[in-house]
């Protein structure tokens, strides 16, 4: 009786308990716990920016310019009198938005191209690999600067740059996995049974390559957050007056001898975010897929 009941609900409970078990393993590592807390903090403050922010992030109030932190302005104000705490909250939203959307797109496209390269004819594999190598031959920031010069700075430009530079990274990993799995018995069996190539790729191959790929992608979040902040710091990313940690840092840099607060307010959340995601990503990798360590390093 109980056995049947268990079998009926095996999928949902199985997945749920696996997730809980995994989370427990991550939290048991001190580094994983710190990472998780930081990531949760950043995510919650980004999602809840509308409720937490005491002021409009773009509201200019020149009379209150460059104030030091007080109860009214928790992190002080910038050179235009804008509340830094509110700007930091909304800046986090931009950072996570860019990271999640662009990495998500790059994962989907990289997955498709990687499987195509691994599964398709040899000439296609060669062409794709060559294309990946060419794109990777530009140092990321140099490539970004060249693209910004041509297309002009915007949020979409940053996302485009991230997608284009990250696709080869993911596609290569997927390709290697696909090649390794191509000759394995369960794929052969599916082939013998007359399963179509598309179905083999999506139903049989995909579940086996997606795990390591997602861990890899999560470890790229700090990298992408840094690129967004970096380009916005150079004035080549998010357009003013939209707040971004990078543009807050840029404002702070211009007035660094007058007030340290914008630089501190823009930089510390950025550091905490990159640290949080890195700690969490490394713990995830070490707990779930220690083999990945070799691929990345």
């Amino acid at each position, binding site marked *: 009786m109980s056995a049947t009941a268990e079998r009926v609900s095996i999928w949902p409970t199985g997945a749920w308990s696996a997730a809980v078990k995994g989370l427990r393993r991550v939290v048991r590592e001190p580094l994983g716990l710190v990472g998780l807390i930081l990531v949760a903090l950043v995510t919650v403050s980004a999602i809840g920016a509308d409720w937490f922010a005491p002021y409009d992030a773009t509201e200019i109030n020149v009379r209150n310019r460059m104030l030091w932190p007080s109860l009214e302005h928790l992190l002080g104000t910038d050179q235009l009198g804008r509340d830094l705490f509110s700007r930091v909250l909304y800046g986090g939203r931009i950072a996570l938005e860019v990271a999640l959307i662009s990495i998500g797109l790059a994962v989907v496209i990289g997955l498709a191209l990687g499987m195509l390269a691994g599964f398709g004819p040899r000439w296609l594999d060669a062409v794709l690999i060559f294309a990946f190598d060419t794109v990777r031959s530009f140092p990321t920031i140099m490539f970004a600067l060249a693209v910004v010069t041509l297309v002009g700075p915007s949020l979409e430009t940053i996302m485009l740059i991230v997608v284009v530079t990250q696709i080869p990274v993911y596609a290569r990993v997927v390709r290697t996995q696909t090649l390794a799995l191509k000759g394995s018995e369960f794929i052969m069996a599916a082939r013998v049974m007359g399963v179509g190539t598309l179905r083999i790729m999506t139903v049989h191959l995909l579940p086996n390559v997606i795990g390591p790929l997602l861990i890899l992608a999560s470890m790229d979040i700090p990298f992408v957050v840094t690129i967004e902040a970096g380009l916005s710091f150079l004035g080549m990313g998010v357009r003013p007056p939209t707040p971004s940690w990078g543009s807050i*840092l840029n404002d702070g840099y211009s007035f660094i001898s007058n007030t340290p607060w914008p630089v501190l307010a823009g930089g510390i959340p950025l550091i905490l975010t990159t640290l949080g995601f890195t700690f969490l990503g490394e713990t995830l990798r070490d707990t779930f897929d220690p083999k990945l360590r070799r691929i990345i390093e």
Partner: protein
Amino acid sequence: MLTFAAKRLFLGVLIVVAAVSLLYGMIHMVPGDPVKIMLGPRATPEMKEVLFEKLGLNDPLPVQIVNFLGDVARGELGYDVFTGRPVGTIVAEQAPHTIILVLASIGWAAAIGIPLGCYASVRRNTLFDRISGVLTVSCIAIPPFVVALYALLLFAVWLQWLPAIGAGERGDLGSQISHLILPSLAVGLGWVGYIARLVRASMLEVLGENHVRTARAVGLPEPTIIFKYVLRIAVLPTITLLGIGIGILLSSAVFAEIVFARPGIGKLIYDAVTTRNYPVVMGSVLVTTMLFVLCTTLADLINALLDPRQRSGQ
């Protein structure tokens, strides 16, 4: 080995050619024409026509790309839109500043990273190892331009120990060195992490090998084993890391040069981007890309030379 080297070099050249074509093609995919932007809003149609002819923009795109490749091969990278000086000369003038910065950063990062990684591997799983592990990950995770900003704030604005802008007086070594400290701190910090991690990992690998066991059995003192038989092998992958990491190095150099208003390739590109000086942007991006491809190719070759297993392809 020779076949592998030839293949790898050929691939490197092919990649550079593809990258150059891609870069050149990108200009033409963009809506709006570059000549108009180069000349500014007050340009007359005659001026545009002359510049079009001069730049060879009336030819079909593939012909233009081949011509451009020929120019690049001859070392002609075009001319600065504003001053009319050859881009090659400008890049060559700025490059030494960047090279000095990169070398100084790598130098101090290796001087700290190698001993740190070495000691952590010898004291594996102790408190020291764990702390240094967290520190090295943190060094890697913190964005270099934030390090640059905070170094500027702390040492130049608050404490006023070190100068904030420029590369120092010409011919005055002391001033040049004091101008180098903060930028190289920002560029090098992440590398302390990379190097320490890599040295620790490869030390652990080498420590488990047979020749180390033999050395221990013979009764050699531990320091001799570590320094003479383990560390010497374990630092080799660092060389490869530098080859692959030159892109990251150049990227952090861009930020350090901008924050500290220090001359160099990064500052050059940045200034060119903000003034939409196409030829200078393209020229300097090209030079750094070629440098990058050259370094990764060299790293691959060194790797293959040291480890024959790498030559077979995958």
